[in-house]
C-alpha cells in the first residue's frame, strides 16, 4: 500500500530558485527507503515535503491518501515521526525525562505505562544515566539520540530520519541500526536521508538518488 505519494511536486524557497523539480514518487510502508545525494541536492527539502512540513508550490503530496495541504502539522505528527538534521531544534524541554514525557504532561495524562516506555527508550539509547540532566548540556550525539527517543515515544507508523547517524560513534550506530531493524519488523515504514553509505547499504530496500532537485536514480 502506498503510504506517501508525491505527484509532480515543485518547490522553491521564497525569492530563490527551484530546489525540487517535478518529482513524482510513491513510498511504501514495507520498504526502508533511503534518499541519498550530494549537499544542496534537495534531500532535506524533499524529506520535509514528504512529511508535510513544507508544502509544494506545484503538485501535491498525499499521506495515507490525505493531501498535506489540508493537513495540520499535528495531524501529520500523529502518523509520521520526523527527525531533524539539527537535533537541538527539536528538543524543547529543559530536562531529559521531560522531553520524553512532554506529550503526556501537556495533556495531564501521565501514566505508569508512559514512564515504563520512557525508561525502556532511555536505557536503549544509553541516556538513563542522564535522565535528570539539562538537555542543553548534552553532546551532539546525545541530543541526536534523545530526539530520536522522543519521537519513538509517540509510536509513529512511519519515520523520516534526516541524517540520523551524524554525531554517533560506531557502537551507537550499530545500536541504532539494530533498533531500526526491530522497528522495521514491527511494520514501521521509514525514509532515511543520509550521507552514510554504509548505513544506507545496511538498511535500504530502496535507494533514491537525487541531484539538483531531480531523481536521478531509483533502485531496489
Amino acid at each position, binding site marked *: 500500500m502506498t503510504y506517501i505519494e508525491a505527484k509532480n511536486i515543485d518547490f522553491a524557497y521564497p525569492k530563490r530558485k527551484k530546489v525540487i523539480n517535478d518529482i513524482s514518487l510513491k513510498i511504501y510502508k514495507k520498504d526502508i527507503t533511503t534518499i541519498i545525494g550530494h549537499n544542496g541536492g534537495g534531500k532535506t527539502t524533499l524529506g520535509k515535503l514528504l512529511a508535510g512540513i513544507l508544502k509544494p508550490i506545484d503538485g501535491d503530496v498525499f499521506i495515507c491518501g490525505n493531501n498535506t495541504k489540508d493537513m495540520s502539522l499535528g495531524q501529520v*505528527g500523529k502518523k509520521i515521526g*520526523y527527525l531533524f538534521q539539527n537535533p537541538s531544534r*527539536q*528538543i524543547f524541554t529543559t530536562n531529559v525525562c521531560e522531553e520524553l514525557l512532554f*506529550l503526556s504532561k*501537556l*495533556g495531564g495524562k501521565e501514566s505508569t505505562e508512559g514512564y515504563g516506555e520512557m525508561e525502556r527508550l532511555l536505557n536503549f539509547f544509553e541516556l538513563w544515566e542522564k535522565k535528570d540532566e539539562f538537555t*542543553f548540556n548534552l553532546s551532539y550525539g546525545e541530543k541526536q539520540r534523545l530526539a530520536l527517543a522522543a519521537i519513538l515515544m509517540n509510536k509513529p507508523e512511519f519515520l523520516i530520519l534526516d541524517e540520523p547517524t551524524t554525531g554517533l560513534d560506531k557502537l551507537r550506530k550499530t545500536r541504532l541500526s539494530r533498533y531500526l531493524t526491530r522497528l522495521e519488523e514491527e511494520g514501521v515504514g521509514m525514509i532515511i536521508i543520509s550521507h552514510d553509505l554504509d548505513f544506507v547499504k545496511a538498511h535500504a530496500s530502496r535507494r533514491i538518488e537525487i541531484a539538483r532537485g531531480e531523481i536521478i536514480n531509483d533502485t531496489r
Partner: protein
Amino acid sequence: MIQDKSLDPRTKLIIVISISSLSVFIQDLRYLIIILAIAILVSKILGSEIFTVLKKLRRMLGVFIAMIIVQSLFIKGGNPLIMIGKFTLLTDIGIFRASEFLLRISIILVSATILMTSTSREILQGLVEWKIPYEIAFMVSVAIRFLPLLGEELQDTLTAIQLRGIDMDKLSIKEKIKLYSHIFTPVVAGAIVKSQRLSIAMECRGFRAYNKRTSYIKLKMNTKDYLISTASIITSIFIAYIYLT
C-alpha cells in the same frame, strides 16, 4: 524618487532617530497621526518594504492587542465608559492612552524599516564613523543579523512541537501558554550558546587584537545627505516646538 543606495546610512539613522524621538516625546494623538503619515511617506520614498515587514509582524498582532487592552484597563483616570457594579473597566483616558501606544509602536516600526534598506554592515560603518566604539557598533549589527535567525529557530521549534502530534487549534488557552514557554526556552538557550561560540570564534580571529582598526568600506556624505539630515532635524525641532507652544 531618492534611490536607496545613494543615501548615506548615517542620514537614514538621523531620519529614524528624529522620527522615533518625536513619537516618544509627543503625547498628542493628532501629532502622532501626522508623524506616522510622515514616517510612512519617508519609508516609501526610500523604497523600504513596509507592508512586507508589517505582514511578517502579523503574528505579533495578538501581543499588541493584549497590550492595548491591558493599557486601557489599568488606567483609571478620566470618565468611565464601561463599569461593572462599582468597578470601572474602561475609561476615555484608557482608550486615549491605548491609541497613543498603538500609534507610537507603529511609528517606531515603520521608521525602523528605513534602516532595512541598508545592509547591517553599512549601518555598522555609519555608527563607527560617528565615533561609536566598534565593539558596541558591532554588537548592534550582530543583534540585527541574528534576529531573522531567531525567528527561524522559533518556527522550527514550533514545527517540531506540532510534529509530536499536537494540534495547536485544539489546545486550551492554559495548554497553549504552557506550550509557548517550551518554544522560548530552547531559542533563548540556543542564543546564549551561539553568542558564546561567536565570541570565542571572533577572539580566535583576532577581534580587538589592535587598538586601531582600518576599514575597507568608507562612507561619504554628499550634499543631498547633508540637506536631508538638516531638514530632518529642523522639521523635528519645529514639530516639537509647535507641540510645546
